[in-house]
């Protein structure tokens, strides 16, 4: 019951956030250089044609009227029509969103799979060679930009060895795992490096905690000490970081999806920006804002289930 109340409270608090986001989106989009009418009609269109297009898109209305329309329509779930795709923005976004969601979750999953065990190995062998090796490798991963890692992976594993496709998106779950493997790895190398470093130092700190000594003195089996007492406590700080990295990951899809030719919302955003597709840019930005807020809410909820001292206020 307390949880439900908390969620409602958080959702309510999101309203001003979104209003602010809408103002920023609206203003920024209108400061983009270039004219959407020209983008639609082409360079050689007549002035009369351009004027007609502007009229149709409502671009001739005063700014405040345009903003009012934007806000009221958005609240009703109408984000307008994409100039580029000639279809409702909501429809365009919902078609592309699952791909990006899949990619993001895939990358997060891989990151955790890589970072979790290695953080334990590094922490338990602190200062010895496994620790040094793991940290060195991840340091390299951290210092290379994702698009660069992506290009290297594409060149060797996809183009030369032909183990993986150079782009695209499968139809079945298995095919998706296969198609999106390289982009996920490219992203996961970076994300897992951040998570590994944080988790490793958290584990090292927790291992010396008095309650872990007490757990040892109780004669618990080692796996229980590590899994129940150490991991849970170490996760508290890492969960926050994980939430932040997922937020980061989503904006990172702009680059990843472009490099790997994945038809998700990240690449859609880039196309929309090049086409001066105002409604689509607005819709996408808003979508990103909603997703990031939801991820942060989920992070906080997860954290409060982990840590009873932080239970929901």
């Amino acid at each position, binding site marked *: 019951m307390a949880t439900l109340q908390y969620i409602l409270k958080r959702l309510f608090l999101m309203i001003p956030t979104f209003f602010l986001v809408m103002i920023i989106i609206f203003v920024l989009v209108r400061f983009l250089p270039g004219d959407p009418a020209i983008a639609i009609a082409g360079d050689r269109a007549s002035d009369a044609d351009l004027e007609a297009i502007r009229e149709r898109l409502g671009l001739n209305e005063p700014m405040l009227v345009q903003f009012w329309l934007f806000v009221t329509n958005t609240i009703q779930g109408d984000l307008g029509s994409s100039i580029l795709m000639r279809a409702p923005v909501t429809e365009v976004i919902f078609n592309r969103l699952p791909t990006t969601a899949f990619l993001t979750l895939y990358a997060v999953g891989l990151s955790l799979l890589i970072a979790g065990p290695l953080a334990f190995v590094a922490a338990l062998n602190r200062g010895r060679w496994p620790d040094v090796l793991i940290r060195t490798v991840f340091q390299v991963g951290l210092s290379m930009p994702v698009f660069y890692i992506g290009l290297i992976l594409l060149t060797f594993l996809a183009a030369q060895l032909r183990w993986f496709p150079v782009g695209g998106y499968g139809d079945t779950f298995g095919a998706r795992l296969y198609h999106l493997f390289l982009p996920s790895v490219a992203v996961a190398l970076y994300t897992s490096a951040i998570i590994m470093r944080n988790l490793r130092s958290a584990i090292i700190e927790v291992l010396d905690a008095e*309650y872990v*000594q*007490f757990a040892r003195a*109780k*004669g618990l089996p*080692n796996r*229980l000490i590590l899994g129940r*007492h150490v991991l*849970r406590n170490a996760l508290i700080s890492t969960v926050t970081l994980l939430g932040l990295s997922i937020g980061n990951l989503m904006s990172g899809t702009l680059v990843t999806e472009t490099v790997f030719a994945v038809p998700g919302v990240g690449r859609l955003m880039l196309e929309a920006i090049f086409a001066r597709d105002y409604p689509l840019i607005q819709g996408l930005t808003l979508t990103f804002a909603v997703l990031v807020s939801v991820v942060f809410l989920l992070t906080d909820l997860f954290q409060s289930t982990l*840590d009873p001292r932080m239970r929901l206020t």
Partner: protein
Amino acid sequence: MIDQKPILEVSNLCTTFRRGGVDLPAVRDVSFSVGQGEVLGLVGESGSGKSVTLRSILGLSRRYGDVTGEVRWLGQDIASMPERKLRHIRGREIAMIFQEPMTSLNPLLTVGMQLTETLKAHTDLNRAARRDRAIEMLDHVGIPSAASRLGEFPHQFSGGMRQRVMIAIALAASPKLLLADEPTTALDVTIQAQILDLILSLADEMQMGVILVTHDLGVVAQTCENVAVMYAGRVVEQGAVRQVLGAPRHPYTVGLMRSVPQNVPPRTQLYSVPGTPPSLEALPVGCAFASRCQNRTERCLTARPTLDAITDDRRVACFNPVAAEKAGAA
């Protein structure tokens, strides 16, 4: 001493930590034994190696340093026992409670979970029986409406109650020996006596031996049969409480006794042993206490006195022990 064969015999226990390439001799040549149901006091200043001694007995110091010497538990050497085997002795036969009830319980797990996981590790009880036993234990250590508090977390308990919870957890599997590392130091003075009484009455009831680490000589005098006084990692005096505290022979023990205020008029300055203990990184060649000692001679600076028996069950590590008659008068 005690009539029966000791259950725990520690001989020549040494624990060395390495920090930044320097060896820190935290415990040196510590030997003592504990009989069934015996309460042994281990006293000394902070940093004298009392806690490390306890932790080394249970094998908790291994991860941080080198432990040598013998720890015989019911005739079996557990100092060299592999972790996998040792864990069946920890908690089941030898239990330990810590100084800080605030940090020694896992903040993320319910009290019930922390109690029952010990039972699960050491007994064949099923889920329901473990729960019953957990309630029984909490009840036994004096936690009101125990059944309803199983689902609560440590931060919902007060300091004294947390220490009771820790005792309940430690004693859940009915160990034969309890290592108590300053169990009352972090508590309010009013609670201290209650917790101490609880530990001792439970020990008596369960026929359990106790090693009580403390720096409170009053507590030792009231509760222990035997006492070992530690200084800079070594035992400097050891024997029956009546004798050691009644007629201390080592100058350090004398100093400790004098620093307990007794019948002093108000506003007199309290006595403290002059100087500070040497750091472990730079222990002197001779006696570690020499620089603070009034009985010091040339010899104390160049040679270290060994812990020798002066009577059957009384040992002192000093070249110039305080005379028996004089000590008796002090």
